[in-house]
């Protein structure tokens, strides 16, 4: 296990538009029991002038405000997404430029389905502990794609979260006391080049993918750190729907009460690279010094990271410096399926 690392700032962003599950069921003729089984009421939809870059940028702007550090001290910006605006042209450089981090910085976009942002998070832990950079900015952001009429359309949504990571110096918002990653080649979900929508391996998405990888990453982390379920105040898991996190929590011995504070999918759907990281942002918004948080993102293909995070004293001074996840959750405007297709550019126009 590595030396402790630290979170100095965290930030979230959720677009304001919401599409109710009932609208998708109405258009595509789904039985009402299908969306009900997902435990999701509505999903967040990016506006017509938003994409994963602008979403990640606002989350990063909020993280920077809470970190209270000079942006020039950030030596790496990593943007994790599976819905990048460009196939070739980094989003990370635009974000670095807009935040005043350029030019003395590394900047790159990462891809690993829903856990690219978490890969950024863990890679930056290594870079800061190794002394390559003083601080790093990890971003997970998506405007998730789903084939119209596919069951994925119920949950594929938009949002993002960002974190400023460095070495602990006593003023950090939280200490990352350990982390672990578990990956295998598992074909549960993919999107081929030039294809607009992903496909999924039917039953593969659950047992051999989501549950197997999260259970193994979390168990190994807890064994390595010699921690038990009762040592954690919160448990946050990747949230492809509102049901899986509660189920994997039960498999791992975590009660519902420790999972619900970081469960945002029932309100906004699955923000893919946002997902568990948005859950972490929401828990940091409310956590008290000394509390311990378990976070386990997951990405198809497949892999899961597990982190053990202990909240620091200075979190109290940082919370009010940016909008909370709940501030974004309550800022919402309902749209119908017609407006959703326009905002998501599902309607083809000749230009």
């Amino acid at each position, binding site marked *: 296990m590595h030396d402790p690392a630290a979170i100095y700032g965290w930030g979230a962003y959720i677009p304001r538009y919401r599409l109710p599950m009932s609208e998708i069921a109405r258009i595509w003729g789904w039985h009402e029991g299908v969306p009900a089984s997902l435990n999701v009421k509505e999903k967040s939809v990016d506006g017509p002038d938003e994409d994963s870059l602008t979403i990640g940028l606002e989350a990063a702007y909020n993280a920077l405000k809470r970190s209270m550090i000079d942006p020039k001290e950030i030596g790496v910006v990593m943007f994790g997404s599976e819905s990048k605006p460009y196939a070739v042209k980094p989003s990370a450089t635009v974000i670095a430029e807009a935040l005043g981090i350029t030019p003395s910085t590394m900047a790159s976009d990462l891809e690993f389905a829903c856990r690219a942002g978490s890969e950024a998070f863990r890679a930056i832990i290594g870079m800061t502990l190794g002394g390559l950079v003083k601080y790093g900015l990890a971003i997970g952001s998506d405007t998730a794609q789903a084939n119209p009429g596919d069951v994925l359309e119920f949950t594929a949504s938009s949002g993002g979260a960002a974190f400023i990571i460095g070495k602990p110096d006593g003023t950090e918002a939280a200490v990352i006391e350990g982390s672990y990653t578990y990956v295998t080649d598992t074909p549960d979900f993919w999107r081929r080049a030039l294809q607009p929508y992903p496909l999924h391996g039917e039953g593969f998405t659950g047992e051999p993918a989501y549950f197997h990888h999260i259970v193994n990453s979390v168990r190994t982390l807890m064994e390595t750190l010699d921690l038990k379920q009762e040592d954690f105040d919160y448990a946050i898991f990747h949230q492809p729907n509102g049901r899986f996190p509660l189920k994997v929590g039960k498999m791992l011995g975590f009660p519902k009460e420790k999972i619900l504070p970081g469960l945002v999918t029932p309100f906004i759907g699955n923000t893919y690279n946002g997902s568990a990281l948005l859950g972490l942002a929401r828990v940091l918004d409310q956590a008290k010094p000394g509390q311990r948080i378990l976070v386990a993102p997951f990405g198809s293909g497949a892999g899961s990271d597990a982190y053990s995070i202990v909240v620091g004293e200075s979190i109290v001074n940082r919370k*009010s410096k940016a909008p909370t996840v709940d501030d974004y959750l309550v800022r919402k405007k309902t749209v119908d399926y017609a407006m959703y297709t326009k905002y998501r550019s599902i309607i083809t126009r000749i*230009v």
Partner: protein
Amino acid sequence: MSMEYSVPIYWRNRVNYYKLIGGRCKKCGRVFFPPQSRCPYCSSDNVEPVSLPRIGRLLSYTVSYNPPEGYKLQTPLIIGLIDLGETRIIAQLTDVSLEEISEGIEVEAVVRKIREDRTAGLIHYGYKFRPVISH
């Protein structure tokens, strides 16, 4: 394939558009946006960049129902005149509908897509203003 919109012009202005950088005349003291090499008020070339406030007040607005190609998804466009204290700025408003908008509301700067150069060209990002998110 040629671009509809100039890539060099976007590139030259990108930092001002992302970070809302204006100009301050060191001779007459006036602040202006966008920044330029000569003061638009006294023509002095003694100007310096200045970061503008990201929160202001909406003084007035107008609506465009027939904007140029590249803006169609955002139609109708709401264009606002915003008081930033030392200067005023004209900017597109976002995350607000005509039913929700009113003069005098507090607005804050965000970076959004301004327009897309057809389907294969550059995506232009820049400042817009939206109603302030209270926290």
